[in-house]
């Protein structure tokens, strides 16, 4: 697999690996059929993501995407984190092979799910409002459809 130096660096020394015991929100996406599962833990204080950790079952690109995403959203507001697109993750990694682009999508989805979980725990919004704010989608990929 043709990975950029940045991807190699991140899967060799992934940042923010682990879990947060008293997380404000936890998001888990992917499934074993696709071969990638990503779990993101967020600690949110005053609308700011003060800490973030991840656990990932997956290939090098999945590990690197999770690792760099945690760096990109740490210290940001919820709104800023929700604006993070998979293309930003790809850019920060100096590119991903086309067959691995879904890994960056998974990272974006994991962040959105974790923030949605935070809103659900907070209990101030309806499920519909949360879905819209966090743009939650049904998971779909070529592996699962086949």
């Amino acid at each position, binding site marked *: 697999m043709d990975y950029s130096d940045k991807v190699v660096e991140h899967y060799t020394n992934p940042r923010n690996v682990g*879990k947060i015991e008293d997380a404000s929100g936890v998001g888990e996406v992917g499934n*074993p059929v696709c*071969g990638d*599962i990503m779990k993101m833990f967020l600690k949110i204080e005053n609308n700011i993501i003060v800490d973030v950790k991840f*656990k*990932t*079952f*997956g*290939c090098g690109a999945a*590990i690197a995407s999770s690792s760099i995403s945690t760096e990109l959203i740490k210290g940001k507001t919820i709104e800023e984190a929700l604006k993070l697109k998979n293309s930003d993750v790809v850019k920060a990694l100096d590119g991903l092979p086309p067959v691995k682009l879904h890994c960056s999508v998974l990272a974006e989805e994991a962040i959105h799910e974790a923030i949605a979980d935070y809103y659900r725990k907070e209990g101030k919004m309806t499920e519909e409002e949360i879905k819209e704010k966090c743009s939650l989608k049904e998971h779909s990929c070529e592996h699962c459809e086949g």
Partner: protein
Amino acid sequence: MEKRLPGNSNISFRFIEGEGLLLNLDLKGICASSGSACTSGSLDPSHVLLAIGLPHEIAHGSLRISIGKYNTKEEVDYLIENLVEIVSRLREMSPLWEKFIEGGK
């Protein structure tokens, strides 16, 4: 098993994914594969492992090691030593391992 190639084995490590394992072995100078050469480049797990009834998450963690007549005992020791360390590290990172440890299933 009389007609089996003796220097080749396919081992699955539960809770971790094959490519992550291969990349880390590669960094240690160890060449291995996650499946057959005829399916190299494919991201899908081995169709043989799926056909014998293994679930996807186990089939995804397959490592195929082949040794030849020129490999030494020291090289095998080097492989084992690094494999233990890499598998432990990737498991610490795996949400499936976490579930297994906490749920005991």
